[in-house]
């Protein structure tokens, strides 16, 4: 009965969605977007307009987004902190070949992640993507070698400093140009389409990349280190 009900509900919702969406009509940018497109280069010098929108025009939202990510990681860490009902994994080293490969690949993957977040204002990519790539390198290392310990002190320091730096960049805009996270006059805007351009945008994206990378790495560390249930039997699966 419930199954049929849910199918009917879904069909109704699908019908509603299909009616809501303008199928097959190309959309033109709205008034705000047209302003960003026309003036984005003059105001920010970042070739990637999406980055300009995220880090500058809607930079305050991104600060909130970074906070949400931090809170969810902190929440996951808090939920998984208590270990009652769980025992630690017994230590089973993986193959020597795999460990060597993981350690060999770690550095290139981190460089690739750094490349992505440093070039966030020039090409597709940015702090969140680059941070995720770096976290994938850490995951590779952790999965290949469970005995590997992350430098938690360094990571916490980096993470807090990155968040602090983001807010400080915003305050600098407030002091110099009179509005939080303003990009005018804080740093020279530079030339279009070169690496050192777009004022504080690359700085903020580098900070976001470091923050996301360290946050996701600690999340993976907590999840891998959780252990398995003490009892195996019982319960429908």
């Amino acid at each position, binding site marked *: 009965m419930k199954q049929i009900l849910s199918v009917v509900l879904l069909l109704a919702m699908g019908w509603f969605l299909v009616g809501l969406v303008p199928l097959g009509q190309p959309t033109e940018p709205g008034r705000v977007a047209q302003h960003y497109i026309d003036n984005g280069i003059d105001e920010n010098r970042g070739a990637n307009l999406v980055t300009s929108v995220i880090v500058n025009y809607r930079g305050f939202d991104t600060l909130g987004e970074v906070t949400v990510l931090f809170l969810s990681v902190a929440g996951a860490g808090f939920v998984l902190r208590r270990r009652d009902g769980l025992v630690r994994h017994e230590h089973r080293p*993986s*193959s020597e070949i795999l460990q060597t*490969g993981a350690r*060999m*690949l770690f550095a290139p993957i981190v460089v690739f992640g750094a490349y992505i977040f440093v070039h966030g204002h020039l090409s597709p990519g940015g702090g969140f993507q680059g941070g995720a790539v770096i976290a994938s390198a850490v995951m590779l290392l952790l999965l290949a070698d469970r005995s590997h310990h992350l430098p938690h002190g360094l990571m916490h320091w980096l993470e807090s400093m990155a968040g602090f730096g983001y807010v400080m960049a915003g305050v600098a805009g407030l002091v110099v140009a009179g509005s939080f996270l303003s990009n005018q006059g804080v740093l020279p805007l530079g030339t279009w389409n070169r690496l050192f351009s777009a004022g504080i945008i690359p700085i903020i994206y580098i900070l976001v990349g470091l923050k996301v990378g360290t946050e996701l790495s600690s999340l993976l560390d907590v999840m891998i280190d959780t252990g398995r249930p003490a009892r195996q039997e019982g319960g429908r699966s």
Partner: protein
Amino acid sequence: MTDLMRLVGASLTFLGSAFLFLGALGIFRMPDIYNRMQAGTKATTLGNILTLTGLGLLAPAWLPKIMLIVLFVLITNPLSSHALARAAHRSGVTLARETIYDALREDEEAAGIGPGSPVEIDAAAGSSEVTP
């Protein structure tokens, strides 16, 4: 020049997809996980390399990055299949009926551990110590 390069690039891409298809067919036809992985790993590696190289010839600006991807695939693809095969053998996945010999099982049994046992074969034999 450009026409020739387009032709070569398109042919390489086609050849690569043919090898990828053969790999998929191999996974379908082979009897057990190890034999399937044999077909899968080799065919996907060469298939990827050929497809990517063909793409690089079609768009020469991408060639350096594509060579990086090829190198990455060459390292990671066999590594992952090694990890999968090892995990399969450790958790006791049976070999195909046609299999004639299993040295690893014999050595594990000689060391007194069965498949899926949490005890490490090298810890039990006390032989190898991996030093970083």
